[in-house]
């Protein structure tokens, strides 16, 4: 008979499954708690001098400018594919002139911020974790602390600020090139009347739709860069640790974007 002191393998399998699930939930909650404390420390330090604007601009360049190519590529193809898929569905019920607004609204409210968030999590979030993680294992973070420099303020704050500012801008670029892609496919390949495409777009698309996407992107930018920097500081064991931290930054960054998207949507849909 099993006792509380017996080896876990001796417990019946349903017990072990429940125990494993419980352990995983506790780990996730502990991680969430640590990320919350890390964000709290960021808010505490971000408003305190010295303000290193040069570092923020460097990170804006890295997260923003250097992501433009992949954003333009993803945005244009997403818009084109959406136009195709929507057209063939809508044609069955003779509303193919609505392709423009449907694609544009989908991009503005959902696809642009979410896909931009996922792309930035993969490109910049991973780089943040790898850079800070490498600095941690090679004692560069210790060197900053010994000099009297707050490593969170010096390394994390510029990245989080830059990520929070860059993601809405990238999301707008995504929306723009996606809409252009949908326009080209809709009017040049699928022969939707240009005048109708424009008029329907004007009729159904509102500024609030774009605003919803920009607000989401702002939060995604904060979350992705906070998670990227957090996992960088959590790195402990050499190159393997850096790899693990980078991987976790990407996985958790993406999960947070998707989960947060649901909550933001359910909130924003009520107020906008």
């Amino acid at each position, binding site marked *: 008979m099993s006792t509380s002191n017996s080896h876990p393998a001796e417990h019946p399998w349903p017990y072990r499954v429940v125990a494993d699930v419980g352990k995983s939930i506790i780990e996730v909650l502990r991680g969430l708690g640590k990320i919350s404390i890390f964000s709290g420390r960021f808010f505490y330090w971000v408003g305190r001098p010295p303000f290193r604007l040069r570092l923020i601009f460097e990170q804006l360049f890295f997260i923003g400018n250097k992501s433009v190519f992949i954003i333009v590529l993803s945005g244009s193809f997403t818009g084109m594919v959406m136009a195709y898929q929507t057209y063939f569905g809508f044609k069955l019920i003779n509303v193919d002139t609505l392709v423009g607004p449907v694609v544009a609204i989908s991009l503005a409210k959902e696809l642009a911020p979410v896909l931009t968030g996922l792309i930035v999590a993969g490109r910049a979030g991973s780089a943040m974790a790898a850079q800070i993680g490498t600095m941690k294992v090679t004692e560069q973070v*210790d*060197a900053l602390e*010994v000099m009297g420099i707050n490593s969170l303020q010096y390394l994390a704050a510029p990245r989080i600020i830059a990520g929070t500012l860059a993601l809405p801008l990238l999301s707008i670029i995504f929306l723009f090139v996606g809409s252009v892609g949908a326009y080209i496919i809709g009017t040049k390949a699928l022969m939707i009347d240009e005048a109708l495409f424009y008029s329907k777009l004007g009729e159904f698309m509102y500024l609030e739709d774009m605003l919803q996407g920009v607000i989401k992107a702002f939060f995604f930018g904060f979350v992705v860069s906070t998670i990227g920097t957090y996992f960088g500081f959590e790195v402990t064991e050499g190159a393997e640790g850096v790899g693990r931290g980078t991987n976790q930054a990407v996985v958790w960054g993406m999960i947070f974007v998707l989960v947060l998207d649901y909550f933001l949507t359910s909130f924003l849909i009520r107020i906008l």
Partner: protein
Amino acid sequence: MPDDIIIQFEGVTKRYGEHVILSNLNFSIHKNKITTILGFSGAGKSTLMKLILGLVHPTEGTVYVLGQDLSKLGDYPLREFRRNFGMVFQYAALFDAMTAYQNVEFPLKEFTNLRPSERDHKVRHLLTSVGIDDFGMKKLPSELSGGMRKRVGLARALALSPAIMLYDEPTTGLDPITSKMVNDLIVETADAHKDRGLTSVIISHDIKATLKISDFIAFLDRGRIVEYLPAKDFVNSNHPLVQEFVHL
């Protein structure tokens, strides 16, 4: 605290949970001298250094540095206080995205209001004094040898004219010739800054080098200072562990 004492440990114990790292340390480090903390791996040397820097605080007792109880300082004052230290890390810990020149310039840019020309003069002087030429100044840490990285690390540590230099395992991973060069550099640095009272604290397990360059040697074993003597008397210590270490 007497004038010639710069760091003082008073009944210092450091525990992480149930695990005792340092136990009831009572000793002082003399100003203007080179003191080496010797010990086997896991003896608590790194924790002792972190206590000196105020990166961790004692569970019991007090660490005084320049007469200041570090545990009484808040975050900002403690960070400012740390500018009294220069630290040379085991693997130099140079910022890998910066050149040798930029590494040395970094603390000056962060903490001084020197004009660019004054800063440039100081950086070049510091790097030249540790044997780095114009060509080496432009190199990234990844392009420098282990010995050169240590030199740049030393120049960076000296940039803000610290009162206390800390060396963490300065010769670990270096070949014998480079080790000698680093040890000579430590002594030269101490001599060059003697007039302003520079104190050097070295964490090491290199007994031969320690005997050559130190004024005082403390032997740390399992969290306790088991011997603390002037270097010239250290080899004659009767402590069995010290004898074992000396005759390794």
